[in-house]
Every structure is written in C-alpha cells, then in structure tokens.
C-alpha cells in the first residue's frame, strides 16, 4: 500500500476563519450562559460559537490527503443535514441552538459488550487522529475536510462483535423538538445508515468528533458522526445515538426514500450515473466562479485502500 506522507502544516494555518467568526458574532448574541462549566474537558458541554474547544492530543495520520482543505466557512455553511432543513445553508442557520449534550450512545445487537454509554465514556478508550479526507457528495460536488476522529475499526473491535455480526447499523437522534427538520417527513426519521463489518473495520473509516482541530459544529453532525471517504457523503450519518451489530443488511435512509437512486453501498463511482444526473465529474467547492469541474475518481481516489472489499461484486448492480 502506498502511503502518502501528510503535509507538515496545520490546516488552520492555511485558511482564515475570520470571515466565519464575523458572520457568527451577531447571531451568537449572548447565548453563552453556563456553557463554560465543562469547557476544560475535551468534550465540554455546549461549545459556544466563537469559543469552540480545541481537541487535545490529536495525532496525525498517514491516510490524510496532501490536498489543501476547504475553508472553515465552506465546511460549516454548506451542508446536507435534513434534520435541520433541506437547504444547503439551513443546517448552519438552524443548528445553532442545538445542544449536543447530554449525549449517550447505545451499542446493541450481536456483540459481547453492549449497553448505553455517556458520550464521554464512549470516547475514553480511543485515540484522536486528524484525517484530512476528500468528501464527494452524491449531488456531484466535493470538499476536502480536516476531520478529527477515532478509528471505527477500533470501536468495532472494542465492543467485540460475535460471528453473527455481518453489518454495523447506525441511527441519528430522533427529536423533532431539537431537530426542526424532523417535523416534516422529507425522509423517514430517524436517519439510518449501515456498513458491512469489512467496511467498518477498514482503516479509512472513522467516527468524527471534530473538524479543524476543534469540536464538531452542530451543522456537521455534533457530537459524533460517521466518515467513510470512499462513499458518497450521505453515508456519513450525523448525530449518532445508536450503533447496532446486525446479521442482516440494515435498511438505510436514502435507499428507503428512493431505492432506484441510492443503493446500500453508495461507493463513489464515476461510471455509474445517478438516474437523473452524471457522476463522471464533480464541482470542487471553494474554486470560485471560474473553476472547471474535475473528473470524479473511482472510490473517490481511495481505491488502493478499499477496492479489495468489493472483489467479485458487480458495482453496477450493487451501487
């Protein structure tokens, strides 16, 4: 396996956050009270905008791309997170009041260790790593995002799935009071996603808890979300509250919504078009008005690490 050495430069040095902060300043308007109680810990309570907590002890990873990441503003104002609205800027506008604490994650199904864990306890056994990944949305746009997360393979191993566990299923919080987008049935709530065990234990898969070295903003899926960079972005389920080890392939949200358009695997594949649009090229966010589209790569350029997972599988049928 060819391992690229990541650039020896911190992403936050590349991109200015000033624009983002300025825009947030007037929105913030004094909603900070009481939030600083736990600010000293790695996953403190509500992190006030503009005072986002730096994550401690973040290691580097050989899996990071050397491509320059998108600006913090791009990463946090242009999102698909239907729980906070279907417009691209809706999550940024509507998720500000959301408090991703207290938060617990239930682990169940075919595993030796199961139970419900406080988010902080859930995180304890695992090491934080920065992973700068390409992200290709099924809508044919892309970004480069400097995630901070934990290896999903480590998480899977920690809970000791039994031999019956063939898949890992994930679920988002279902709370229409805190997630206004869930008051409309655009999708079936809660949002569900899933991976095969082999996919979940591939070293590229992570559960992200931060971007740009800081805790994850609400609109990006706070406090914890899935990132599988060789798959379309919608596989990256946000605001995870349940992880289940299952024997059968779990139902997944976009497949439930439109089975002819979105498959279980959803691997980035320039040769298999969406029924309504081409997947051969993508628009890289951040290029401005006059940047041409760029060709989309098989498995989003991560073929070396993941292609073997699909040996013998017809990717046209299993899209």
């Amino acid at each position: 396996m060819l391992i690229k050495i990541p650039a020896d430069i911190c992403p936050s040095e590349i991109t200015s956050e000033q624009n983002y902060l300025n825009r947030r300043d007037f929105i913030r308007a004094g909603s900070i009270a009481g939030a600083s109680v736990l600010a000293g810990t790695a996953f403190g309570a509500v992190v006030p905008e503009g005072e986002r907590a730096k994550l401690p002890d973040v290691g580097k990873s050989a899996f990071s791309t050397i491509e320059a990441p998108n600006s913090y503003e791009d990463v946090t104002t242009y999102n698909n997170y239907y729980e906070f609205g279907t417009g691209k800027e809706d999550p940024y506008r509507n998720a500000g009041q959301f408090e991703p604490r207290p938060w617990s994650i239930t682990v169940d199904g075919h595993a030796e260790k199961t139970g419900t864990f406080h988010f902080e306890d859930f995180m304890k056994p695992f090491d934080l790593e920065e992973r700068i990944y390409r992200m290709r949305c099924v809508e044919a746009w892309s970004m480069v995002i400097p995630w901070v997360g934990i290896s999903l393979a480590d998480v899977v191993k920690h809970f000791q799935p039994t031999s019956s566990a063939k898949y890992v299923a994930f679920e988002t919080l279902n709370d229409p009071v805190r997630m206004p987008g869930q008051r409309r049935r655009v999708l079936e709530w809660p949002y569900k996603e899933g991976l095969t065990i082999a996919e979940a234990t591939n070293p590229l898969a992570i559960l992200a808890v931060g971007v740009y070295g800081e805790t994850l903003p609400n609109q990006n899926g706070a406090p914890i979300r899935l990132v599988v960079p060789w798959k379309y972005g919608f596989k990256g389920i946000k605001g995870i509250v349940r992880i289940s080890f299952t024997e059968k392939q779990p139902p997944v949200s976009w497949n439930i919504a439109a089975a002819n358009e979105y498959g279980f695997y959803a691997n980035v594949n320039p040769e298999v078009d969406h029924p309504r649009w081409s997947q051969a090229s993508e628009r890289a966010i951040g290029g401005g008005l006059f940047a041409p589209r760029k060709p989309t790569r098989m498995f989003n350029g991560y073929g070396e690490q993941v292609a073997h997972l699909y040996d013998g599988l017809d990717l046209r049928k299993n899209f």
Partner: protein
Amino acid sequence: MNTLQKVRFVGKPLVFLLCLLPAALVVGDAFAITGQLSANPVEDILDRFGNWAIRLIMITLAVTPLRQITGWNWLTRFRRMLGLFTFFYALMHFLTWLLLDRGLAVDPAFQWAAILEDLTERPFITIGFAALLLLMAMAVTSTNGMRRRMRRAWDKLHYSVYAVGVLGVWHYWWQVKKDTSDAWVYAVILALLLGYRTWKKVRH
C-alpha cells in the same frame, strides 16, 4: 395622464426595473457588494436565474386571469415585457449552466459531446431545453411587425406559453433531490392558472 400614458411612462419603466432587480442582485452578490454568493457560487447563480424564470412565467400567465377578474384591461400591456423577461432569466440560467457549470468558458477540456449527452440523456435537462427553445421562438416573434405578418400562426405559436409553464415546473420538479415542497407550490399555482382558463372555456 390617462391610463395608457401612465402604463407607458410610469408602469412599464417601473416593472422593467423590478424585473431587472434579481439579476442585478446576482451580479451584486458575485462582486460581494449587495451580499455574497453561497459556498457553491455557480450553483447559487444557476438556481437563482432558474427560480426567477419560473416565477416570471407564473406572473406572465397570471396577467390574463387577473385582467378578466379585475377588469383592468391595461394589465395586458405588461404581458410582452414579462414574457421577454421570462426568456431572459431562462437564457441566463442556460448560459450559466453551459459556460460556468459545464465549463464551455472556463474548462480547457470542455467537450460538446458531454453537453449533447446531458441534453439528450438527462430528461430533466431535455425538457428544460425544450422550454428555452419555445421561449426563444416567442421572443424573436414578439415584435408588432412579426405579429402582423404571422397572423393566425402567431397565436398558435404563442399558445406554447402554457407548454413552457408545464415544462418549466416539470424541469424544476425533476431535478429536486427529495424535498419537492417548493416544486409543489409552483405546480399548484400553475394548476390554478391553467385550471382557470379551462374553466372559462368550458363555461362558454
């Protein structure tokens, strides 16, 4: 000033400027004067021109029912201008797609073959393009002279404004990923506008 003079010297310049406003705001946002474009500026511009084309075809189709209900016959005098602005926004939408999004103006690797594939194999693009061609045919025949020369054929051609409304809403509906609520709003408005005409016809 009589009504006709008011329409000519006040109403028309005012409507003209109002119709230009959305385009001016796109330009203003592109230069960060009036605001700013989204993180995906090409998509932002594409959507805004397209949305205004749909809104303007609705407004254009609303002129006749409104005139009949209110008895304000001078409303008819705005119809051509509104139709031409519909064409203008549809054309800007198309040019944004062709020049910036698909990259004719910016991509050294641009290929007409890819455009042809989009136009023929992506049905929502095909019907959008069909609507643009109809609008173009109506726009070039919109002068008084053309109307006189074409006689009955002119009426026939310009009835296709209804087809443009249907194709436009269909084109919009079909490209939405999942949340069709905005498309529903346009579809209901269009159904009301066409339904009113059918109802009028049946009653006579």
